[in-house]
C-alpha cells in the first residue's frame, strides 16, 4: 500500500490548496450535525452517494518549505529549530492535499465531523530545509468500524523529480472515522470491542496546554477547524470547550522523545479521548522494546488521550 495504484488518475495542483474556505464551505450546521447527531446513512445503497472512493491522487510538485514557517512550527511544538524537517511538519505540508480529497463532492464521507482515530507515519529518509518536495495524497481502504465507517488518507513525500514508484521519504496514513455512516454491505453495528481499561502509570512530565494552543497550531498547520479555535465555536459544534488538534498532541509526543528518535523513524499514534483546552495532561515517556512510548492522559479523570510509539528506523 506504500505506492499509489498506478491505475489512479493523478491530478496535479499548481499550488497548495488553501484550507481556509473548507470549513465555511462545509457549513457549521452540517458540521455540528455530523458531530452531535451523526446522520445514519448507508453508502452504496440508496440515493446518489457513491459507494466507493474516488480513484484519484492529488499531486503537488516542487514544494519548497519556507524556513520561517518551519521555525514557527518547531518553536510551537518544542522541536529544535534544526534544518531537518520533523515528521509532523511534513504532515502539515501534506495536510492541504488530503483535506482537498475530503471536500471533493465525490468523496463518500462527510468532510466535517470525521474523527481522527490514528496516524501512522514513517520518515524513511531525512528531509531537510532546501530540499524540493513532491507530495501525493489519496484516500483508500474504506472499511467498516463498529460505530461507522473508516477510511485511510494516505500522503507521501518524495524528493522533487523522484519517480512515483520509488520509495517515499515520508509516508503517512491518517485513519478517520465517519460515525454512523454505514457501508452498504455492512450488516448493522459491528460488535464494539470492549474499551481498554486505562491503568495510569507514573508520569514523567506534563503538558501545560493553554486555551490558545488550538489557535496557534491552527495558524501554523492551516487546520482551522472551529472545534480547535475557541470555546464558543467548539460549543457550536457540540464540544464543551475547544479541543487540541490531535496532530498537535502527537507532535508534542514526538518532540518529547527528542533526538533519540534518530534521523529516520516510525511514528504511530492512537487517539483516545480528545484533549479539552485549556488542560494539563500528564505524559509518560518510556523506553519500549525498540523505541519509545509516549502516553498522555488526564490524571484527574484517569482518561487516556493518546498513545504514541516512536521507533527509530534502520
Amino acid at each position, binding site marked *: 500500500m506504500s505506492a499509489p495504484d498506478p491505475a489512479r488518475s493523478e491530478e496535479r495542483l499548481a499550488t497548495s490548496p488553501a484550507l481556509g474556505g473548507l470549513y465555511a464551505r462545509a457549513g457549521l450546521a452540517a458540521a455540528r450535525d455530523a458531530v452531535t447527531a451523526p446522520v445514519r446513512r448507508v453508502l452504496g445503497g440508496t440515493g446518489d452517494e457513491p459507494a466507493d472512493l474516488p480513484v484519484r491522487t492529488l499531486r503537488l510538485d516542487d514544494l519548497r518549505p519556507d524556513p520561517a514557517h518551519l521555525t514557527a512550527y518547531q518553536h510551537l511544538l*518544542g522541536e529544535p529549530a534544526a534544518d531537518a524537517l520533523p515528521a509532523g511538519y511534513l504532515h502539515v505540508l501534506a495536510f492541504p492535499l488530503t483535506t482537498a480529497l475530503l471536500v471533493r463532492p465525490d468523496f463518500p464521507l462527510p468532510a466535517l465531523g470525521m474523527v481522527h482515530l490514528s496516524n501512522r507515519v514513517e520518515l524513511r529518509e531525512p528531509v531537510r530545509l532546501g530540499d524540493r518536495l513532491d507530495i501525493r495524497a489519496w484516500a483508500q481502504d474504506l472499511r467498516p468500524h463498529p460505530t461507522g465507517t473508516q477510511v485511510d488518507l494516505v500522503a507521501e513525500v518524495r524528493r522533487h523529480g523522484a519517480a512515483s514508484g520509488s520509495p517515499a521519504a515520508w509516508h503517512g496514513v491518517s485513519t478517520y472515522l465517519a460515525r454512523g455512516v454505514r457501508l452498504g454491505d455492512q450488516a448493522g453495528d459491528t460488535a464494539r470491542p470492549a474499551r481498554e481499561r486505562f491503568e*495510569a502509570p*507514573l*508520569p*514523567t*512530565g*506534563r*503538558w*501545560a496546554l493553554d486555551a490558545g494552543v488550538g489557535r496557534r497550531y491552527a495558524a501554523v498547520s492551516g487546520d482551522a477547524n472551529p472545534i480547535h479555535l475557541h470555546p464558543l465555536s467548539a460549543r457550536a459544534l457540540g464540544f464543551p470547550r475547544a479541543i487540541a488538534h490531535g496532530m498537535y498532541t502527537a507532535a508534542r509526543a514526538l518532540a*518529547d*522523545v*527528542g533526538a*533519540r528518535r534518530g534521523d529516520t523513524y516510525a511514528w504511530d499514534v492512537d487517539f483516545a479521548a480528545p484533549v479539552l483546552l485549556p488542560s*494539563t495532561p*500528564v505524559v*509518560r*515517556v*518510556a*523506553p519500549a522494546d525498540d523505541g*519509545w512510548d509516549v502516553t498522555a492522559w488526564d*490524571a*484527574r479523570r*484517569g482518561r487516556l488521550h493518546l498513545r504514541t510509539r516512536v521507533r527509530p528506523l534502520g
Partner: protein
Amino acid sequence: MAPTTSGPHGPETPTTRRAVVVGGNRIPFARAGGAYARVSNLDMLTAALDGLVARFGLQDEVLGEVVAGAVLKHSRDFNMTREAVLGSPLSARTPAYDLQQACATGLEAVVSVANKIRLGQVESGVAGGVDSASDVPIAVSEGLRRTLLTLARAKTVPQRLKAAAALRPGDLKPATPRTDEPRTGLSMGEHQALTTAQWGITREAQDEIALTSHQRLAAAYDAGFFDDLVTPYRGLVRDQNLRADTSLEKLAKLKPAFGTRLDTPATMTAGNSTPLTDGASTVLLASDDWAQAHGLTPLAAVVDAETAAVDFVHGEDGLLMAPVFAVPRLLARQGLTLEDLDYVEIHEAFASTVLTTLAAWEDKEFCVTRLGLDDALGTVDRDRLNVHGSSLAAGHPFAATGGRIVATVATALHRRRAELLAAGEDRPVRALVSVCAAGGLGVAAILEAA
C-alpha cells in the same frame, strides 16, 4: 611554586598540587519576600564577598579569580561576579567570571577554582553563588518581545505600524520566570514526588529528616559553629527559615504541597521541602603556599569531584538522582567506600531527595544493574549525614547552596582532624558533598581535612 615536570616538548608544565579551602563566608539565608526582598543578587553576592574580605583581611588583594553565579539572573547581570568584585574591597585587578549549573552552581564553582589552583594556573580564588527568589527577573511576553524586536528592525513608518499592529492585549502581560523543567513541564517538587513514589519513601521518614536538619542547624548556631562562616546582613543574624522549635507533631500537620496533581502518594510538604530562599555564599580557596604567605590555615583540600546526569525526560531516572550515579564513580576513582567518610553532605533539596539517594545506594539490584557495582553501595551512617543541618533548615538559594555546604564541611573537617590528633589518632578525615540540580544534574566532591 608548584612542582614541575619537564615535558619532552616545550617548557615545563606544572603537575597538580593541593587546592585547599581556607574558609568561607555567607550571609544568612532569608525566606523569599523576607529580609532580602528588596535587594538584588549583585547586592547579596557583594555583601558575602565583603564579609569574606573582612574575615580574611583581603582588602586590596589581587586574587587569582572569583567565580560565582546565579540561577535566576537578570539580563543586566550579564557580568554579575565581576561587578561584585568591583563593588567589593578586593583589588579591582581581581578577575572574575559567571558560571551557572542550576543548583550545583556553587559546588561547580568550587571545583573550577580548585582545579585551576591544582594546575598552578592561579594561587587563590573565591567560589560563590547567589540567588534571589524575591527579586526575580520579569520579562515581557514573547509576543511583546517579538514586536519590540521587529519594531527595532523596522525602517519605515508603515513597517513600524505593521509591527505595532501585531501586538495583542494579552502580550502586555509580563512573563515571570518558571523553574519547571522545560522538557517535562513538571516542577522540581513534582519530579521528586514521582521519585519518592517510585522508591516508596514515607511521609514520616521525610519529616524526620526535616526535624533533624532544623535541630542540628540550630545546635550548630548555638555552639557558635557559624561564627566564622556567616556574616549577618540586613538585620538577619541566622537563617530565616530555621525553626529550632519545630517538632514531628508540627511537621505532621502540614498539608502535602507537591505531587497532588500527579496522582502520587502525597507525602511532600512545605516542611520537608526547601522553601524558596534568598542568599549568597562564598568560599576562599588557595594553594598551600598562598595560604601560608597570608597567615591562613588550610581547612580542607578539595580532593576530587564528579558530575553526573540522568535521563529524567525519558523516565529512566528521577530528576534529582544524578548524585546517586556520581558518587560511586567518585568513590571508586579514589579507592574509597562510604565507611571512609567522616561526613556525608547530601543537599536537602527535599527530605525525600536524601532518602531516595540513600535508598538507591542500599538497593542491591539497583546498584548492580544501574550503577554497575557488585553489590549495594552501602548505608550512610545517619550520625555522619548533614551533621550541621542542611538546606531544609537553612534554606536553599539555588546557586548559594554549594558554597554553604563546602565552607561548613571544611570547617567541620578541620575541627574533627584537630580533635583526633589531640586524641592521638592520626588518620585522614574525609567528607563527601553531593548536590543535585535541575536538568537531571548532580555534582559530588570529596574533601579531606588539610
